[in-house]
């Protein structure tokens, strides 16, 4: 038992180049205040903010009402092909795979219930990168983002 517990997160980017080269890096994230608000509001009225209706394709604009990881490049917000897993009993990992588009990815976001517009507007924005290094992709490269949220 804990006097308090905390929600934290981090993400890993994995770029698989067309020539087989793999580049991996790992970064801290910033948990968005909307998630804090949703968790608090759920004490009064049951809230659904579960990442259980995931984006299933790389497309712009991202599909309305879906959850997961979106990426900004070539002047558009794209959804990624997402899946989730539980690497430990206290953490949830969302994996987003992006390929087929030549773009410099300059931002990403994780959230619940996307607005379906060419924007980063979610019903509940979970997290953003604390720091981000732009990633330039050709259409044959694949960018995989593994975003892990941990309750501890």
């Amino acid at each position, binding site marked *: *038992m*804990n*006097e*308090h*517990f*905390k*929600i*934290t997160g981090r993400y890993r980017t994995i770029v698989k180049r067309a020539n087989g080269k793999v580049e991996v890096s790992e970064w*801290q*994230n*910033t*948990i*968005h*205040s909307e*998630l*804090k*608000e949703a*968790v*608090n509001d*759920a*004490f*009064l*009225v*049951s*809230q*659904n*903010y*579960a*990442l*259980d209706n995931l984006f299933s394709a790389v497309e712009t604009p991202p599909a309305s009402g879906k959850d997961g990881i979106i990426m900004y490049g070539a002047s558009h917000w794209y959804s990624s092909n997402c899946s*989730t897993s*539980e690497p430990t*009993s*206290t*953490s*949830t990992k969302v994996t987003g795979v992006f390929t087929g588009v030549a773009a410099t990815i300059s931002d990403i976001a994780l959230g619940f219930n996307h607005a379906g517009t060419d924007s980063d507007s979610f019903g509940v*924005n979970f997290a*953003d990168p*604390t720091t981000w290094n732009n990633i330039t992709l050709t259409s044959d490269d694949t960018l995989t983002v593994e975003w892990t*949220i941990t*309750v*501890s």
Partner: protein
Amino acid sequence: MEDNSIIKVCGQYRCTVKREDGTIEQGEWKNTIHADFLGLLESSLATPQDYALNNLMDTVEYNNEQEGGWPTQAEKDGILLRTDSLAFERGSYTTVCGIADGTPTYSKKVTGVFTGYVVTVYEANIGWKLKSIAADPPFDVIIATPTSWSNITLAVADELTIEWTISFS
């Protein structure tokens, strides 16, 4: 956007005893967030979970392992008092509860009021969905327990009010 790299969940509770002669005794303590709630919160990121305190206890009711079920308070949420020195299932009372936004911004304050019985209160728990029969643990999900507690002995005309605040910062 607020710049948080973490969300911290913590809590505290305040006990106010109003004695029949008008004396007021007050104490404030830290709580321990229970692992049940930690697990529920983690699950809520992937699957919708209900932990809303929206079916609150609304009367003072007693239950123990001999009496078995709660006559009217089964499956309700709020603050439960343990009045047996050993375990909730050996004797506990519900409180009359309310909930409101607390301070700081992302917090909720649950208030439980108890009066009308001569008892010693050995502990309090705040939780979601009181089990249908007397049990220990008494709730489907315990949200928090006292980190420390001083026993409180009450006369029939005394009134104990517990204000329990859970905050997200």
